[in-house]
């Protein structure tokens, strides 16, 4: 049984939320990615069932349990990577990204850039990004 709550909980963990750049995930976007991953041929059933079990344990144990039960299982680790890529790039398995959500993909935030193809303003490129922190 796939639940949006498990998907958001897993996404928060595997993406390391909160990040300095991203304080929380958009639940509406989570629903989009959950749907699109399913349509894109990514079966989340076993991954989220495993995660559901891990999430019952104290959070301090989650990294070790993730490493042994998910990263240690090539199939589940592959599916977990698809979840990460959905949030990072908007591509969900075989489903291309949706134009409406293109600007919210994480790679642009982490690059301290803006999404390619989205107008920003004249001349900003002469300077480092505002608050450049790398």
């Amino acid at each position, binding site marked *: 049984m796939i639940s949006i709550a498990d998907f958001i909980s897993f996404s928060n963990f595997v993406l390391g939320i909160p990040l300095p750049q991203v304080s929380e995930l958009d639940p509406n976007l989570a629903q989009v990615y959950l749907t699109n991953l399913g349509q894109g041929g990514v079966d989340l059933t076993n991954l989220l069932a495993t995660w559901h079990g891990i999430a019952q344990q104290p959070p301090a144990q989650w*990294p070790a349990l993730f490493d042994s039960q998910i990263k240690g299982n090539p199939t589940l680790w592959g599916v977990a990577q698809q979840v*990460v890529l959905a949030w990072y790039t908007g591509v969900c398995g075989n489903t291309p990204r949706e134009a409406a959500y293109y600007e919210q993909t994480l790679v642009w935030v982490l690059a301290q850039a803006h999404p*390619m193809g989205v107008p920003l303003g004249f001349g900003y490129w002469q300077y480092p990004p505002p608050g450049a922190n790398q």
Partner: protein
Amino acid sequence: MSQTLDCDVVIVGAGISGALLAWKLGSAGVKVIVLESGPGPLALANRQSYVNNFKVTGAPYPINPQAPKEEDFFTNTSNYYVEAPTTRPEQGPVSTNPNDRFGQYNIINGQVGSGDWFQSNYERQSGGSTWHWLGTSLRLLPNDFQLQTMYNPVYGTLHAYDWPITYNNLESWYGLAEQTIGVSGPDTGESYLGITRSSNYPMPGIPQSYLDQQFTAALQGQQFNDLWVNKNFPMLVSPTPQARNSAPGYGGRPQCQGSTSCIPICPVQAKYDATQHIAMASQMSNVQFLTQSVACQVLVDTTNPALPITGIQYKTWDGASHTVTGKIYILAAHAVENAKLLLLSPCGTITVANQSDQVGRNLADHPVSLVYAQTDNPLYGYRGPLSTSGVESLRDGSFRTYRGAFRMEIGNDGWSWPTNDPYTTPQTLMTNEGLYGQALANAVAYNLVRQTRIGCLAEQLPNPDFRVTISSQVDGLGIPRPMLSYGIDPYGQYSLSAAVAASIQIFKRMIAKPVIQYNYTCWSTGDLVIDQTRSDPGSEQNANIFVREGWAGAGHLMGTHRMGSDPGTSVVDGTQKAHGHPNLYLVGSGNWPSYATGNPTLTITALALWAADTIQKQLTSM
């Protein structure tokens, strides 16, 4: 139902040359009909839908079976070119497997590998390839027009071929071209390597990126030692003149918004594209654009010793055949389609304009070496126009006797060209290093702000065996498809090799502990050893400078109907009129007899404006 239309001037192709000629001649009251193979007219709504396509798949432009094209960006693949079995005896065995793309294609020195095929494409719709050009608007150098006279490069039977015109002949047309397409140029102008200017740029220069400024600092006082002539040449970063607006309103366009997607599409049309002049010409009652109209034969009156052209036959997308007639005919369909159309057009025992047997031959590109690096300090790529600076100081020198020159384009687009980043790095870090969570985010953030690339455009010599011929395979309208043979001659290989060395030299100034990864399996012809001896070949692990295997296409299709004063060895004369026909002009970079290193569009523009002037004078005398 077929029909016949009549006008003064028939133009085939609504790309930049065709659009400018229609606009110029139309403004002078000439009755013009333009045949465009692809769809149109294309307005703001099309642009927005293309931008959305780009966001979804990376591929903005649809493929049409009636006017097919070669591979599009990223996922929109279409194999339009038929790849020629090699015929050159020095080349290795040819695969007989029709599905073997590489094996069927031109093979250099017996080696088969990725990159040994023609990698540049063009757009078949109103506006042509200016939909996805970068906007770089460099002039060619005075010596570029006289490569043979100045340097006499010779490799076996290959040698250079001088233009029948000089830089000084073209200088005022360059100025007009910059005004016409709206070039923002550096306040200091271009003053390197013999370039002189009699006019100012119409707009101030586009600001150099933060990344460019770091390159300028790193290259302070740097020289490139050319091993062929054992001489040092300065490495200077120059701001690039660009046909995008630094000032709002010029040409009706907005200021550049730094969308970082000039290729494949500018979302706000701050960059010039030919739809601008198509829109202006379309307002004129004497100019008519016929879209979805694919030219398939140039008709000639062989009973008249002067061999005048009498019409252009074309097919509409419904398959019906039509004819358009005029006094003067201009082929402006780009290097591959111009050659294809001429070779499909009988003229007695030969084909139109082909008494020299040069139609389709000397196909060239500016093969691009891609060297990319992760620098020590963040440079903040993925921001601004795709490129705002280059190293132009190595585009000419005595080394051109032995190897081609190159220009270096400094990219503001991170690793998007060589690796399709920023989309690739997250996957790589998960796969190779097992990262997730905050560690993954930190690593992605650290890497992306340091990803930088240099693309070097290399110079080739004309090679008659690199050519467009006619395939027995046909497109969706039954028109034969072009068959291409192509490769990189030694002159071009040595140019690429030197470009790789120069790029590595630059990145070594920005990385304290450089580790270089080479991928030269497909063209390890010996020449690269020259430059590897002064580099530090490293392992794949921990590499921070990467040399991409083979070369990329620049999208600069050149040389299939070259200009020259000798009708025995060239297709058009110095006025761009075809030898052997009184009323046929060919325009575009197919006219280039040598290729130099400058991006071709500004020169294409200057030549088109000059041709419009010539044709107008001829019309008044008819």
